[in-house]
C-alpha cells in the first residue's frame, strides 16, 4: 500500500512543470551545438524525474539507469543503444560485438538473460514496528511497504547486488520506505526511530558501489529506508557570496540544471551525477571529474546540516575557514550514513564557464602518458579534467565508436590511424590516450590548451582531436549500461578506484592488472579477463586511478564468488603497493575489513567514540565503515 499525504497533487504538478521546462531547454541546447552545452557534453540530453516516489517506473530494478536506455544486439546481430536520452541513443555500434567476442570470448549464442520482473512473493514480508508506524502516520509523511519500493532501496550497484537481482534472488530488504519532504520531516522521523528503536538507512541516489545500502542480515529491528528524493529544492542562491543552499536529496543533474538556469553551476560532476544525490556526495566524500577547477566535495561545502539521534549538528556561521578545533564537517563527510541524515547543504557556486573545449592526446605508451600527467600536475596547469586511458581502454573506447555517417569521416579516421601508427611509429598495442576538458574564458582556455599540448609534446604526445576527447567523456556515462549487456552474455565485471603518490602510479597500475589476470587464472576463469585502468585525477602529490575488470564466467559454478575473490586480491595488491583503500567510492561494508590497517587502531577508536556519542543505540544501523 501507498500512503499518500495531502501534498501529493501539488507534487505531481510540480513534476509536470519541470518536464516541460526541461524539454524546452534541452531542445534549445541541441540547436546551439557550438555554444556551451553542458548537458550535451555529458552525453545525456533529456532530464530525469527520479524524484518520483516510484523510481522503478522509469528506472531498471535490476540494472543500471533508465529502463528505456540499454545496449542490445539487434536482429542483425549488431550492437545498438536504445532510447533517446544520450548521444549514443538509437545508434548502431558496429565494433562492439567483435570487441566483446575477442576480448572475452563471449558469444551471442550463449545468453544469460535476467529475470524480467520482480516476483514479489520472494520478498520477505516486512517486519513492521506498529508503534512507530502509528506515530509516523500521524505526521503525514508518506511511506510505503510495497515490495517493489523496498527492493529498489535495498541495494547499490555492486556486482553481487545486481547479479542477485537478475537471478531474482532477494535478501534482507528494508521493511518500510519513508519520503520526508524537508528537514523538519527528517527530524520527526529520527525522533520516532529513536523512540521506537527502529533502524534507519538513509537513501539518496542508490548509486553506491560499496555495499553501503545492503541491509545488515543480522539486523532484527524493523529497517526503514529514508529516501531523500523529495528534498530536492534549491532553497536560496546568494550571488554576493556565490553560495547556494540546497536540500540534500537533490540529484546531480537537477542541481546543475537548476543552477544553470540562474547562470551558475557547482562544477561537481561525479560519473554518477545523473542519479547520485548531494547528501550521498557528502556522506561518501565524493569527487567530481572537474575537481581541478571546482574542487572535491570537501572543498565545495560551506555549511552542512545533519539530523542525528542526538539532535541537529550544524555550524553557527558560514565563514570560509575556521580554526575551531577539528572541523566537525569532517566527521560528517565520509560518515556513510552511520551518524545521521544530511538534510541541507550550503555549497559554493560559480558563474557558468563561457567556453568549454575537449581535447585528446595520443602517447606512444602508458609510461609516457603518466610522466606527462605528472608534469602537468607539477606545473599546476591541469585542465578541468585530464584522464589517461591505458591501451586496453583505448581499444575499448574505439569499439564503442558509433557507425560513421560519411565516407569522409571514415577516410579521415583511417588517415589519422595511418599517421599515428605508421608515420609516427606508435605501436597500436602500446599507445594510450589522454582526454582533456578545458573550461573558462575563451582566451584563457586557448592559452591553457597550448600550454598543456606543449607539455604533452615533450613526452611524445600527439594531439588527437576534440572528437576523441568528447567520446572519452561520453563513455563515462554509458559504461555502466554496458555491464548489463555483458551480464546478458556471461560477462561480469566492475570498476574500483584508488589513489596513490605519483611515484607509485605505474607500479600499481602494472601490478594490480597483473594480479587480476593471475588471480583469474588461479581461480579457474576459463577466458583471459579484461583488466584495464585509467588515471582519472591528478593532484599535487599523487593521482587517482580507476580499474576496470571483467571476465567471461562460462564454466564457473559460482562466478560472483570468484569475482569477489579477485577483487579482494586486487585490493590487497593496491594496499601492499601503497595505494589507498578508496579515493571516492567510500568503504561501505565491502572494504570495512581494511579500515583498521588503513587508519590505525587509534583512528578507529576515534571514529567509534564519535559514533558511540552521536548514535549510542545504533539507529543509523547500516553498519558501514566501522
Amino acid at each position, binding site marked *: 500500500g501507498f500512503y499518500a499525504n495531502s501534498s501529493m497533487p501539488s507534487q505531481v504538478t510540480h513534476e509536470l512543470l519541470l518536464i516541460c521546462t526541461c524539454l524546452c531547454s534541452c531542445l534549445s541546447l541541441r540547436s546551439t551545438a557550438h555554444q556551451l552545452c553542458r548537458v550535451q557534453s555529458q552525453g545525456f540530453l533529456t532530464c530525469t524525474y527520479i524524484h518520483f516516489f516510484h523510481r522503478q517506473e522509469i528506472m531498471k530494478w535490476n540494472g543500471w539507469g533508465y529502463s528505456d536506455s540499454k545496449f542490445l544486439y539487434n536482429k542483425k546481430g549488431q550492437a545498438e543503444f536504445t532510447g533517446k536520452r544520450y548521444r549514443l541513443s538509437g545508434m548502431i555500434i558496429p565494433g562492439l560485438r567483435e570487441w566483446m567476442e575477442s576480448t572475452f570470448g563471449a558469444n551471442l549464442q550463449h545468453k544469460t538473460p535476467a529475470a524480467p520482473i520482480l516476483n514479489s512473493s520472494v520478498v520477505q514480508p516486512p517486519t513492521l514496528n506498529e508503534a512507530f508506524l502509528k506515530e509516523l502516520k500521524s505526521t503525514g509523511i508518506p511511506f510505503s511497504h510495497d515490495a517493489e519500493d523496498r527492493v529498489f532501496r535495498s541495494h547499490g550497484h555492486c556486482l553481487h547486488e545486481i547479479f542477485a537481482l537478475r537471478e531474482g534472488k532477494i535478501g534482507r530488504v528494508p521493511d518500510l520506505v519513508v519520503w520526508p519532504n524537508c528537514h523538519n520531516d527528517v527530524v520527526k522521523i529520527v525522533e520516532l526511530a529513536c523512540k521506537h528503536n527502529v533502524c534507519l538507512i538513509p537513501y539518496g541516489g542508490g548509486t553506491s558501489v560499496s555495499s553501503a545500502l545492503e541491509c545488515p542480515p543480522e539486523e532484527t529491528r524493523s529497517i526503514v529506508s529514508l529516501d531523500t528524493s523529495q528534498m530536492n529544492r534549491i532553497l536560496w542562491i546568494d550571488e554576493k557570496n556565490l553560495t547556494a543552499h540546497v536540500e540534500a536529496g537533490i540529484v546531480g543533474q537537477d542541481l546543475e540544471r537548476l543552477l544553470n538556469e540562474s547562470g551558475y553551476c557547482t562544477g561537481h560532476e561525479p560519473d554518477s551525477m545523473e542519479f547520485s544525490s548531494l547528501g550521498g556526495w557528502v556522506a561518501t566524500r565524493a569527487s567530481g571529474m572537474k575537481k581541478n577547477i571546482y574542487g572535491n566535495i570537501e572543498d565545495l561545502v560551506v555549511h552542512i546540516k545533519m539530523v542525528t539521534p542526538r539532535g541537529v549538528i550544524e555550524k553557527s556561521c558560514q565563514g570560509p575557514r575556521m580554526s575551531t578545533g577539528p572541523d566537525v564537517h569532517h566527521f560528517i563527510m565520509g560518515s556513510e550514513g552511520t551518524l545521521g541524515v544530511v538534510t541541507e547543504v550550503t555549497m559554493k557556486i560559480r558563474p557558468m564557464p563561457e567556453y568549454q573545449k575537449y581535447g585528446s592526446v595520443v602517447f606512444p605508451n602508458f609510461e609516457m602518458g603518466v610522466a606527462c600527467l605528472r608534469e602537468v600536475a607539477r606545473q599546476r596547469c591541469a585542465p578541468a579534467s585530464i584522464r589517461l586511458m591505458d591501451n586496453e581502454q583505448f581499444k575499448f573506447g574505439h569499439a564503442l565508436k558509433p557507425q560513421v555517417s560519411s565516407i569522409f569521416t571514415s577516410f579521415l579516421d583511417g588517415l589519422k590511424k595511418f599517421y599515428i601508427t605508421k608515420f609516427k611509429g606508435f605501436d597500436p598495442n602500446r599507445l594510450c590516450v589522454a582526454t582533456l576538458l578545458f573550461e573558462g574564458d575563451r582566451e584563457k582556455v586557448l592559452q591553457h590548451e597550448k600550454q598543456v599540448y606543449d607539455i604533452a609534446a615533450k613526452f611524445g604526445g600527439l594531439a588527437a582531436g576534440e572528437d576523441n576527447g568528447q567520446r572519452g567523456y561520453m563513455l563515462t556515462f554509458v559504461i555502466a549500461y554496458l555491464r548489463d549487456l555483458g551480464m546478458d552474455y556471461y560477462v561480469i565485471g566492475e570498476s574500483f578506484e584508488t589513489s596513490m603518490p605519483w*611515484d*607509485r602510479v605505474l*607500479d*600499481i597500475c*602494472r*601490478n594490480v592488472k*597483473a*594480479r587480476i589476470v593471475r588471480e583469474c587464472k588461479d581461480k579457474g576463469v576459463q577466458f583471459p579477463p579484461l583488466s584495464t585502468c585509467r588515471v582519472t585525477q591528478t593532484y599535487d602529490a599523487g593521482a587517482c586511478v580507476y580499474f576496470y575488470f571483467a571476465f567471461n564466467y562460462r564454466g564457473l559454478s559460482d562466478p560472483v564468488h570468484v569475482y569477489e575473490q579477485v577483487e579482494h586480491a586486487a585490493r590487497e595488491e593496491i*594496499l*601492499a*603497493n*601503497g595505494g589507498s583503500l578508496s579515493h571516492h567510492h567510500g568503504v561501505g561494508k565491502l572494504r570495512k575489513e581494511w579500515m583498521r*590497517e588503513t587508519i590505525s587502531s587509534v583512528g578507529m577508536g576515534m571514529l567509534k567514540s564519535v559514533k558511540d556519542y552521536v548514535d549510542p543505540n545504533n539507529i543509523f544501523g547500516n553498519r558501514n565503515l566501522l
Partner: protein
Amino acid sequence: MASKAVYSHRDPMLKKRDDFEDMLEERRNSSDLRYALKCYTPVLYKGLTPCKVSELKQMVLQSDQLGYVITQVSKEKGMTSDEVTGEAAAILEEMAQRLQLSTVRFFAFTLSKVFKTLFRSICINEEGLQRLQQAIHNHPVVLLPSHRSYMDFLLMSYILYTYDLALPVIAAGMDFMGMKVVGEMLRMSGAFFIRRSFGGDKLYWAVFSEYVKIMLKNGYAPVEFFLEGTRSRTAKSLTPKLGLLNIVMDPFLKGEVFDISLVPVSISYERTLEEALYARELLGVPKPKESTSGLFKARKILSEDYGSIHVYFGQPVSVRSLAESRVNRSQFNLIPRHIPTRPSEEILSFVNDSAYRLVRAQEENMVLKPWVLLAFVLLQKQAAEEKQGTALDELTEQAVWLRDLSRQYGAFLHWPDHIPPSEVVSSSLSLHRGLVRISEGRVQLALEQVGGQQVPGETRGAITPEEELLNKAVVILSCASYRNQALNVFIRPALLASAIHTAASNRKQEIYNSFSFLRNMFSNEFILCPGATVQDFEEACYLLVKTGTLQINQQEVLITERGHRTLAFLTSVLDPFLQGYQVVCRFLCEQDGLTEKQFIPAVRKFIIKHLLTGRLGYIEVLSSDLQKNALAALIRLGTVQKIKGPESNNYCFNVFPSEARNRGL
C-alpha cells in the same frame, strides 16, 4: 607457474624429476663452427625495453637511489657531488659487464672443444629449460646455480646459448679480474665484478645494488649469481649468503615489478676438476691466486676423463608466492623508495628462509653417481682401520644396500639399473682410479700411493710423518668431497639416529631434545633451515618409520629388528663431524685467547698432534672448513665469545669452558 613449496618434505619418494638429454651428443656429430655462428634469437622478457650497455650505466648513474647516496656521501666527505659522481662512475666502470655475442660465440666454439675432451656427456633436463624460457618471458629471472667449480658459470652461459635462451649477466668475484685477458673475456661474456668485501662503503653498495636492480627490473638479462657465495670446497652446500638475494628481491618487495622468478640450478660433476686442489686448500695449502698462466698449467687436466655433468634446471620459484602471507609489503609505503633503508627483521628472516629453501632446492636435484655411495663405504671402512681393504663383492653388496636406502630417502641417484651392480661398481672405481687401489679383489683408498700426488722437484725420501699424514688427508678429503654430495639425503635421519644414540632413554621428547641440540650445533655445517626443527624432526621420523627402521608411538621411539643396520650406518655418517667438533672444543678449552688469524693454524697443529698419536680416528677432521664451522657454531651458541681486539679486524676468542660442558660438549 611456480610451485608454492620449493620442496616438500612429506614424501621425498614421490618427487617427480625430469629426464635428461646429453647436449654434447649433437656437438660430437655436427660442426662446432657452424654451431658457434648459429642464428641466436632468444625469447626475451615481455616488458623489456631494449637498451645498450652504455645506456644501462647512464640509468644507474641517473637513478634517484644513487643520486640520494651521492648527495649524502658528498656532504659527509665534503666533496662536490660531481666528484662523488665521478667516483661512482669509476666504480661502475670497474664493475660493469660488456656482454657481447661475438665473445659468447668464441666461448661456444672453444668450450665445445674442451667439453668434448673432458666429459663424456653434459646432461640437461630440457623440460627445465622450457620452464625457464617461459619464466624469462613472463618475469625478470634470477638464475641460482650451485657452485662447485670455476666451470659453473661458463657452463651455464654455454647451455643457455645452446638452447637459444637469454644469456645471463653474472655476478663474479673480483679475483677473476687479476687474470687480465680472461677477466675481460669473461666481462664480455656477461660477467660483472664485485669486490669481495666493501663493508661500510655506502657508495659502492649503492652503485652495485642499483646496477643489479636496474638490469633485473628492466628484464635486460637474467641475473645469475651463486647463493653460496663461493665455490664449495667440500661439495656440501654452503650456508647461503644473503646480500645479493636481498638486492634481487627488493624490486618485488617494493612493488617495482609484479614478480621475480628465482630458478635454482643444480650442477653435479661426476668428477670435479678441482678435486685435489680443494683438498689441499682445506689442509692449508693456500688457494693459488687466479692467474692466466695458472689456468694454462691446468692443461694436463685435458688428458683426463671427468665423466659426465648433470645440470638440472629446477622449478622457477616465484618471489611473490614466497612472500605471500609472510611479508607485509606495505611497510615500504611511508618512505620514498629511493632512500636506502636497513631491511627490517621481518625482511631479513624472510630472505634468510628463502635462501635456505633455494639451496635445498638445489641440493635436491643434484644427481648422485654410484661412486658417491662407494665413497661412503670406503671412508667408513678406512676409519674402521680395515687395513687390507674391502672385498669387491662386499663393496658391491653394501653399495646396493645404500642405493636402496638413499632412493627411499628421495635421493636423485643415477644408478644404471640395467647393468649388473658389480659392473657399475667397477666402472665407478675405474673413473676414480686416482683415489682407490684395487689389489687381489680388494679395494681401499689409495692412501699409500703418495708418489702420484707429489709435487715434482721434491725429494722422495725425506717425508716426515706429518707430511705423510697430510698426503693421506688429501686423498681422504677428496673422497669425502664425493661422499658429501649425498649428505643432504641422509642428514635428517642421521641427526635422528645420533639423537637416539645419545639420548638417555627412548622417550620421544628426550630424543627430540637431543635431535634439536645436534641440529642446532650443526646448522653451520649442513643446510638446515632455521626455525624448522620440528619439521626436520618429523621428516626424519617419517623416513625412518616408513623404511621400517623405527616404530614410533605416542611417547616412545623403538628400533626395529632390521633397523639396526640402518641406524648404525646413519650414526656413522655424523661421526667424523661429531669428532671434529669435539676436538675443536677440546682445543679451545686449552687456549686462553686467540686471534682469528691464529685459529686455523693452531687448531690444525693440535689435530695433527693428536692424529699422529692415534688419539683421533678421523683424518678428515683436518678440514679447515669443518674447523671454521665448528668455531662459528660455538660463537653462535655463546660458548665462545668474539672480542674486538686493539687492531680492527683482529678478534680474540674467549672460551667459557664451564659453558661448553654445560652444553654437553
